[in-house]
C-alpha cells in the first residue's frame, strides 16, 4: 500500500470534522473521495499534507508515519494558484524547486507532450481557467512525490471546460499512471475518473461506502450514457440522499 490511513479523526476545538476515517491507496491507483461541501475533504488533505496534525489516528506513506510532516505529497488545489509573475514554464517547476532543483528540460518536455508548449513563455493572466488548471496539474505531476492529491481541481470550471479537462486528465494519466487521490463533489466525475470511490458522509465525516468502479480503461465519454453508469450514479446518489434524511 502506498497510502494507509487508519482511524483518523480531526477536531477543531469542539467541532468534529473527521471521524474514524480508514482508507488506502495502492500504487498506481486512482481513488476519488466524494462528499458534500463542508464535509471535511480538504481537511483530510491538510492532514495528509502535514500542515495540520490529527486528533487521533495514523497516516502512513510507504509504511512510514508522516503525520505533521510536510512535503511528502504532490498537490493541486481548486484554485490554480499559479504565481502571476512567473511564466508557465517557471510555474510548472515551482514544486520541484521547493523539493530539490528545477529541471527545465523535463518541464519543457512535459509541456510539449500535453500540448502546452506554445504557452510556456505566457504569464498566467493570459491563460483561460482551463489552461491554468492544466498548468497546475503539470506542476503537480513534475514534483517527484508518489502520491498526487487533487482537491476539486475542476469544480471552479464551467461544465464544458470541465468535461474537456476530465478527458485531458485521463489521457495524461493513462499514459503516465501515478497514484491519485482525487477530491470531488460531483458523482459523475468520480465514476468517470476513478478506480475506486470513497463516499464521505456530511460533517462529522466518516466513510459511508467504498465502491469499486467496474468500468475498464481507457474510459470514453460514451460510457456516461450507458445503463450501468446511470445505475451506479443513482446508487451513489441514493446513498448520499439517505444520509440527508437521517440527519
Amino acid at each position: 500500500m502506498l497510502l494507509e490511513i487508519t482511524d483518523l479523526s480531526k477536531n477543531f476545538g469542539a467541532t468534529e470534522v473527521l471521524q474514524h476515517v480508514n482508507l488506502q491507496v495502492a500504487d498506481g491507483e486512482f481513488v476519488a473521495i466524494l462528499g458534500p461541501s463542508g464535509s471535511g475533504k480538504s481537511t483530510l488533505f491538510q492532514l495528509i499534507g502535514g500542515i495540520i496534525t490529527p486528533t487521533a489516528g495514523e497516516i502512513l506513506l510507504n509504511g512510514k508515519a508522516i503525520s505533521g510532516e510536510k512535503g511528502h505529497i504532490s498537490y493541486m488545489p481548486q484554485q490554480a494558484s499559479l504565481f502571476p509573475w512567473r511564466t508557465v514554464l517557471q510555474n510548472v517547476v515551482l514544486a520541484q524547486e521547493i523539493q530539490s532543483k528545477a529541471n527545465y528540460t523535463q518541464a519543457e518536455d512535459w509541456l510539449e507532450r500535453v500540448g502546452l508548449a506554445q504557452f510556456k513563455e505566457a504569464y498566467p493572466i493570459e491563460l483561460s481557467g482551463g489552461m491554468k488548471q492544466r498548468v497546475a496539474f503539470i506542476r503537480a505531476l513534475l514534483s517527484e512525490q508518489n502520491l498526487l492529491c487533487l482537491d476539486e481541481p475542476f469544480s471552479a470550471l464551467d461544465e464544458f471546460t470541465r468535461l474537456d479537462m476530465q478527458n485531458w486528465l485521463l489521457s495524461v494519466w493513462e499514459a503516465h499512471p501515478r497514484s491519485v487521490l482525487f477530491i470531488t463533489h460531483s458523482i459523475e466525475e468520480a465514476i468517470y475518473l476513478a478506480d475506486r470511490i470513497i463516499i464521505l458522509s456530511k460533517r462529522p465525516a466518516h466513510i459511508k461506502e467504498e465502491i469499486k468502479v467496474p468500468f475498464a480503461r481507457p474510459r470514453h465519454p460514451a460510457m456516461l450514457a450507458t445503463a450501468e453508469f446511470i445505475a451506479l450514479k443513482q446508487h451513489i446518489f441514493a446513498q448520499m440522499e439517505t444520509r440527508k434524511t437521517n440527519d
Partner: protein
Amino acid sequence: MHNVMKRGGAVVFLLVLFIIWEAVVWWRDIPMWLLPAPSAIIAEGYRSFGDFSVHILATTKLTLLGLTIGASIGFIIALLLHRMPLINQMVYPLLILSQNVPTIVLAPLLIIWFGFGLLPKLIIISLVCFFPIVVAMMDGLKNTDPTLKHYMQMIGANRGQTFWKLELPYAMPSLFSGLKIAATYSVMGAVISEWLGAKQGIGVYMTYAQSSFRIDRVFVAIFAIMLLSMALFALIQLIERMIVKGQTREV
C-alpha cells in the same frame, strides 16, 4: 492607445491652465514681482539655464543619493518588522511618530548636530522617504494571497522559501507604489535641506531668488522641482515595468 489619450488629456489641461494664467496676467496687468506670466518664467528659465543647470544637477544628485539610502533603509526595516512581529508592535508606533515631526523644524536641529555637510541633508531626505516604503512594503508582504500561501505550505515550502519565492515577489507592486511616493517626497526633502545651507542646489537658487525679489526665478525653481519629481516618477515606473511581470498594468 487609451493611455496616450489620457496622457494627452493631462497635457491639454495643463496648457489650458497656462493660457488662462497668461491671459489673466496680461489682462489685469499684474506686476512681475507679484506673479510673472508663464511666458516670462519660461523666458527666464531659458536665459539663466546655463547658471541654473549646476543647481539642478546638484539637487538631482542629492535626491538620488538620499532616495537610495532612504529606500534601502525603508526596505530593510519593512523586512525586519515583517519577520519579527513582536518588535513590530513596539517599533511601528515610533515610526509613525517620526513622521509627525515637521521637516522644517527638524532640519535646523540636524544642522546644529551634524554641521553643514552632506550627512544632515541625507538624514532629512531619508527621513521623509523611508516611511512610505515601510508602510507599502509591509502591507504588500502582509496581504500575500492566502490561497498561494496555503499552496506553498501544502507542497512543503519552509519559511525562507515562502518568503523569497512568494511573499517578496508578491510585495513588489506595493514596493513600487511606496517608491513612487517616496521619490516625490525626496525631491522636496532635498530642496528643504538645501535651504538650510548648501553651496549649490535648487533650494539655494530659490533662497537667492526670494531674497532678491526675483519671483520669476522662484517660479523657475518651482517648475524645475516639478519636472525633477516627474522625471524620477517616470524612472521608477520604467524600472517597475522591467521588474514586475505578469500583472495587469494600471496607468
